[in-house]
């Protein structure tokens, strides 16, 4: 009889792969949302193209980083929608699927689907600008870190609300505020000097600062580069670990 069997030992990411594919299947129906995920980036690129084409190498990198950053907003919306509207989170969380696998599976599923327009944008950037391999590798690395930070932040943020409409308003302010206002789409040197250290510790602008250095669009002392890289890695790791803790804690407050 099954009830006499001991349950399997705890594995932190049990069920991750299956839940990832579930989320991919769910998200892949949102073709309109996928297309419109590039609206802000597209508009800003058009502005840059009209106003100062020499900034296109910076703007393309910023557009890609911004795209990775706003995936956190999509995760936030998805996590809140599932929890508040569908309550189907209870089906999954009261099961062998671990809370951390639930979070990471959802985050990775959203990212996988919304990566398609980002890849198209990257191909366009390569065709127009043609980045060197080290820059491309740096773009992949920083892009993943920015995604992991924003997905973690978005998941935690989603747990504070009981009403989807309130979430959408605040999420838009947070993600557009941190993704557009700091020097993500434009060179760090255009940002007020006194505020540049702040930009270097915000994940999206820290990532773009490093990328801008790699293409020679911005020059930074070694200390500033270390600060940007260190902040990006440390904040991402810290936010991810906190989210794992938070996901486990909040599952008991359904």
């Amino acid at each position, binding site marked *: 009889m099954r*009830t006499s069997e001991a*349950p399997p030992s705890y594995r932190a990411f049990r069920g991750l792969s*299956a839940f990832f594919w579930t989320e991919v299947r*769910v998200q892949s129906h949102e073709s309109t949302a996928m297309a419109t995920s590039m609206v802000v980036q597209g508009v800003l690129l058009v502005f840059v193209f009209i106003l100062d084409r020499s900034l296109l190498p910076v703007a393309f990198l910023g557009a890609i980083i911004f795209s990775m950053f706003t995936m956190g907003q999509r995760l936030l919306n998805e996590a809140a929608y599932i929890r508040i509207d569908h*309550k189907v989170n209870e089906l999954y*969380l*009261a*099961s062998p699927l671990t809370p951390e696998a639930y979070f990471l599976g959802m985050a990775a599923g959203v990212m996988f689907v919304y990566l398609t327009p980002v890849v198209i944008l990257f191909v366009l950037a390569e065709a127009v600008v043609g980045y060197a391999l080290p820059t491309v590798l740096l773009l992949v690395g920083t892009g993943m870190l920015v995604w992991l930070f924003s997905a973690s932040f978005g998941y935690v943020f989603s747990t504070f609300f009981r009403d989807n409409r309130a979430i959408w308003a605040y999420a838009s302010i947070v993600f557009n505020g941190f993704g557009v206002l700091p020097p993500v789409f434009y060179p760090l040197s255009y940002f007020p000097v006194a505020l540049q250290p702040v930009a270097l510790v915000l994940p999206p602008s820290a990532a773009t600062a490093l990328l801008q250095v790699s293409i020679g669009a911005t020059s930074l002392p070694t200390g500033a580069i270390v600060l940007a890289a260190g902040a990006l890695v440390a904040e991402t790791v810290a936010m991810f670990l906190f989210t794992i803790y938070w996901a486990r804690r909040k599952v008991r*407050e359904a």
Partner: protein
Amino acid sequence: MSAEPLVARDLRKVYHTRGAPPTEALSGVSIEVRSRERVALLGRNGAGKTTFLKIASTLLRPTSGSIEIFGHDADRNPDRARPLIAVVPQEGKPFFHLTPREQVYTYLRTRGLSREVAQTRTSKAIKQMGLEEVQNRLAITLSGGQRQRTMVATVIATEAPLLFLDEPTIGMDPFARRAVWEALRELTRKGSTMLLTTHYLDEADVLSDRLYIIERGLVLMEGTAEELKRSVGGTLKVTIAGETQHAELFRSFGTVMSDASSLTVIVPPDRLGELMAIAVRERLTTTVGPVTLEEAFMRAVGRSINEDE
């Protein structure tokens, strides 16, 4: 430690909401569910049924008390309990952009079942819930009842040792409800145990081996449906429509219950003739029927199950 499917002892749950006084949803609830039993929690909205189910399914921490799932402390060690349970959440909806087949299959895969087993069980659950015709349609295009059947199919397909079902047949037509009942009976025959909440007293009557009546966070009664019905004090009920003024006239026959529009008298069969004679003399419109869980609930709680707080 006990190896019973569920043992809850003196569970209390107090909700603290900012700007509002603390609310005690459970005030010391003790419930035991034995192997292969189907147990129903009956109660009005806000009685504490869903809070209990959430604590039992590891989704909520109790303020005090203990709860064990197959001997595992579900509060302190939920990771041990979760593989043994499956839950139909109240008002839960499937993913709108999955088909019923995809919903059931992918859920089984997240629980670690192999592709082959997941496929087999998915097909069976889809058939049991009468979802064959819509199994490949996105859930967003389905009716509310079909979505609810998808949720139930998802959970019964797990064949988990302990199932929690919070209002599992809500929004379903009578045929679908019967299909759910039959599927749940089959699962208990195969070895599963289940705890369900329901507003449908007929469902609780035909489906559950034992019932708990909960009101304001307390267990008021516990027993089989027959035991609860017997506790009312008679086997027949006489409902007098449009009448609330003659309660005193019938009090000597047994329990008298009244609501806004009618009077219900519980009467032993040997005194039915006597009561009917009075009703005819007073020109009262009466209906005679067997005592149901509704009367047991009314007697225990003092109000109908459909009355809100």
